[in-house]
Structures are given as C-alpha cells and as structure tokens.
C-alpha cells in the first residue's frame, strides 16, 4: 500500500508541476518575446529578431511620423483622468451614502451601480453610440469620458464600500457625540480612514479606462482616436512594426507601475487578501 501511495504521489508531482510550468511559461513567454522583437533591425516582426536596433522606437517617438499615435495616447490619458476624477467624486459619494445602509432600496441601487461589471461592454458601447447619436450629440471626448465613467465607477464603489464596511461605527458615533458636525466627522475621521480604498479603486478605474475597448470602439472617431483602438488598427490590415515599440513602452510602464504599487500600497498583498 505504501508503494502504491508513493507512485500516486510521484504522478501527482509530475502532472501538477508540468501543468504549472506550462501555465507560467504561457504567461511570461509572449511578453518577453514581444519585448525582444521590438528591438529588431529587420522590417518585419519575426522571432528570433535579426540584429538589434532602436529604429521602431525612434519611429514611434518621432512627432511627425507618429502623430496619430501620439494623439491617441494623449486622448486616452485625458479620458482616463477625467473619467476617474468624476468616478471618484460620484462613486465615493454614493458609497458613503448607501454602503452602510441595509435598506432594500439601497441594496438594489448598489447592485445597479455595480452592474456594468457583468454587463457585456459591447452591449453598453453600442447602446451609448445609438443614444448619443439619436439625441443629437456629435462625437467628442466628453461622450467617451461619460461612457468610461459608467464602466469604471464600479471599481471605485466596490473598494470604497469595502473600506467603509471595515470601519468601526463607534468612531463615527463618538465623533458626533463629542459635538462634531456630520461634515467635520466625514472630513477628519471617515475620509482619512477610507482613503486607501478610494485610491485603490481610482487606480483600477484609471487602468480600466486606459485599456477600455468596448466603449471606445463605438464612441471614438478619427479625431477622437483612443490608444487601444489605434493599436487595433495597426495590427488589423498590415502589421505595423511600430506596434511592437508601443507594446515595449506599455510593458515597461506596467512593470514600473507594479513595482511602485508594491512599494507604496503592497498591491500583491492586497490582491491575495
């Protein structure tokens, strides 16, 4: 019996480790491969790359050659900043208003505000295109900001509500029984304690806006181009090698952002908990 068990344990180890290695490889390899290919000397994106050069990065950073990409980047940043800003304002207000409210209506409203998370983004994207067009709006960044706010505010609402639910209600009561006004309590007691939650939500919302495809796909035009849509265009017909350079920049940015988040708020620890 002991022998059978050890055989089973060996097969367990082999199978689990093989599959886990495949998983790790499949997660990491494509990212490494893209990063290497972006330094190719050749005109096409094959692997292994031929030679080493920064030509695609030079082309990417050249303001006249890559004007469209630069505009898409600045549009994406602008939309993400505004939609996150509005999201933080409206989302944290709503969380303060209903997160601790047990009333049935408050629960319904909470579910309603979180529903963009489960609703297929394309359905909302198409709906907003029809809505804005049929009521007579012309395409603009403002409409994209509005659309992004809707699909990213659930992140802020969720993290803020989670911080609020961990808050000891006695803090609120004692502040008010000591004569502090509701607003003073909010400013000096509640907000400082839930600030990490709001910040985490704002970060997720900002990233989700930068990466958003379904809303931008329908609401952006040539003038209001967004980065993911521009990149999609760069690989749809003929593969534009500058996209490897764009990817290289974004990979580096994601890596640095990870490090910063790890040092400041302990991102991985939060993700696990």
């Amino acid at each position, binding site marked *: 019996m002991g022998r059978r068990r050890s055989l089973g344990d060996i097969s367990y180890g082999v199978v689990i480790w093989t599959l*886990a290695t495949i998983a790790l490889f499949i997660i990491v390899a494509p990212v490494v491969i893209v990063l290497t290919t972006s330094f190719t000397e050749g005109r096409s994106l094959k692997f292994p790359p031929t030679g080493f050069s920064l030509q695609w990065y030079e082309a990417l950073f050249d303001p006249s050659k890559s004007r469209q990409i630069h505009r898409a980047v600045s549009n994406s940043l602008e939309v993400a900043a505004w939609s996150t800003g509005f999201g933080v304002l409206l989302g944290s207000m709503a969380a303060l208003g209903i997160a601790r409210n047990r009333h049935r209506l408050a629960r319904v*409203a909470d579910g309603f505000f979180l529903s963009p998370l489960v609703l*297929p983004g394309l*359905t909302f994207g198409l709906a907003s295109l029809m809505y*804005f067009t049929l009521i007579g709006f012309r395409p603009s960044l403002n409409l994209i900001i509005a659309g992004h706010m809707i699909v990213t505010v659930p992140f802020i609402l969720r993290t803020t509500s989670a911080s609020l639910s961990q808050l000891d209600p006695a803090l609120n009561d004692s502040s008010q029984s000591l004569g502090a006004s509701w607003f003073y309590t909010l400013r000096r007691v509640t907000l400082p304690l839930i600030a990490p939650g709001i910040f985490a939500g704002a970060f997720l919302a900002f990233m989700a806006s930068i990466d958003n495809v379904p809303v931008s796909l329908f609401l952006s035009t040539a003038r209001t181009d967004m980065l993911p849509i521009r990149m999609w265009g760069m690989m749809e017909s003929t593969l534009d090698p500058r996209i490897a350079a764009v990817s290289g920049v974004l990979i580096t940015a994601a890596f640095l952002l990870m490090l910063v988040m790890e040092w400041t708020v302990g991102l991985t620890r939060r993700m696990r908990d």
Partner: protein
Amino acid sequence: MRTMTPPSPDGATSPADGGGKRSVTAEWQLALPLALAFASIFLAPLLMLVGVSFFNDDKISQPGFGQWAKFLGDPFSYKVIADTMLLGVKTVGATILIGYPLALVYLDASPRVQKVLIFVIVMPLLLSVVVRTFAWIVVLGREGVVNTVLMQLGIISEPLRLLQTELGLVISLTQIEMPLMLLPLISVMSRLDPNLRDASAALGASRWRTLFTVIVPLSMPGLVAGCLLVFASSTTAFISQSVIGGVRLIYLPLLIWQQSLVVFNWPFAAVVSIALLISVLTVVSALSWLGRRSGGYVHG
C-alpha cells in the same frame, strides 16, 4: 440655529436631538448624483437599444419585429451563439487545466516564491489586452516563434497555420484571461486551513485523493468566481477574437461590430447585442447559482 431649522440636508445634528437617525436619512441622498448619471447615460441608452431593436429598417422609421424574426429565423445566428459560448467554455476549461495546478504550486511555495509568482500573475492585468493579443500574433504567426522552432527541429516542413484558427484563439485567450482565473482561486486557497490537508494525508489519502476530496471542494467558490470572469471576458473579447480569429471565425462581438459600424444596420446590431447580453448573463447566472449551491454543500 440647529434647533430652529428642520433637519438640514447635511445632517449637521447631534445625536442628542435625534440626529443619528436623521443623518442616516440624509446620507442616502449622497448617492443621488451617481443615480442620476446612471439613469441618463446607462439605463436610458440600454432602453433605447431595446427600442431600436424593434424597428424593421436601418433608417429606424418603421417599428416592427422584422429584425428579431430575421435573427431568430436564421440557423446561422444559432451557430454564432453556440460558437461564442463554446469559445468561452473551451477557454474556461484551458485556464482551469493549467491555472489550477499553478495555484496549487503557489499554495506550497515559500513566501518569497509566492511574492514573485503573484507579481508574474498580476502584471499581465496591468498590460493592455491589445498588447497581450499582439504578443500572440508574434508567437503564432507564419514567421512566429512556434513555426520557427518547429521548423528548425525538423518536425514540420511548412509553416503551420495557427492564426485565424480556433485553436490559436483558445491558446491566446487562455493566457489573456489567466489572471482572472488565478486571482480568485489563489485568494480562496490561501485561506484554506493547512491542517485539513495534513489530516487527509495522515488518514492515508493519496495526494490525488486529497486534491479531489478536500482541496477542490473547498476552493469551489474561487473556482466558480474565476470561471465566471473568464467566461464573461473571453466571450466578449472583441479585439482578440477579431485579430487572432480573423474574419472567418464569426462570434457575436464581431457580428455586432460588422452590423453596426460596417453595414450600419443598427436595429439588427441591437438584436445581436441583446442576444449576446442574454446568452452571457444566462451562463453567468447559472454558474453563480452552482457556486452558491456548492458553497452551501461545503459549509453544510
């Protein structure tokens, strides 16, 4: 002043004069601005989408059930729905097959290795989906990594066609959606009591048996959450589907895009996007119902 005016909206009253109760009634009003925004730019567009689907012509002038009849009467529609749902199921299957073992390895790893692993797992989430999709073009293309390696090893003489196939799309989506499976899994698994596994081993169960009778049932909530996220995300992954799958593999998102932005038949596009909404939400609610049941079974 406080005692002279009726409860002010900012609830600036002290508990002594019953303000505790009143500040709660005032507090919910803080949700009004968001409610207003959601009503005007979320609910109203969705209602309009439903309305537009009940028009027969692409000028949106003749009301009728024509587009619904066209969609529901065409066997092609059912094929596209089935293909889309199957794509989701295959991606979920593949992420479980290799993601679950990785979560198990994570569970047994030392804290330092765990830190590195979680870094590697989370980082793709910060990376644009478009970049992750593009990576697979480089890997699976005619001159891509897979073909180069296989040809140099002499296993194949002609480049394999991997892009624009369902296999290539499922492999790519497996990587693209993997963090969505791993994060809920790992978060549930790290909370498991390690004594349970030791007890199972001490009672003579093999590691396989411990896995299937102890770890898998207890990690069910995380597994179900992961399946939900991966399914919902892979069935609606328009960019990955269109770039890696190409135009010959037609899924619901591509059909919506074609009908709305290429053919400009908005009523039909509205019908297809409602079909997408209903089919994704049906599977997702079925899964979460299963999840609640399994949760009850584990704790009961």
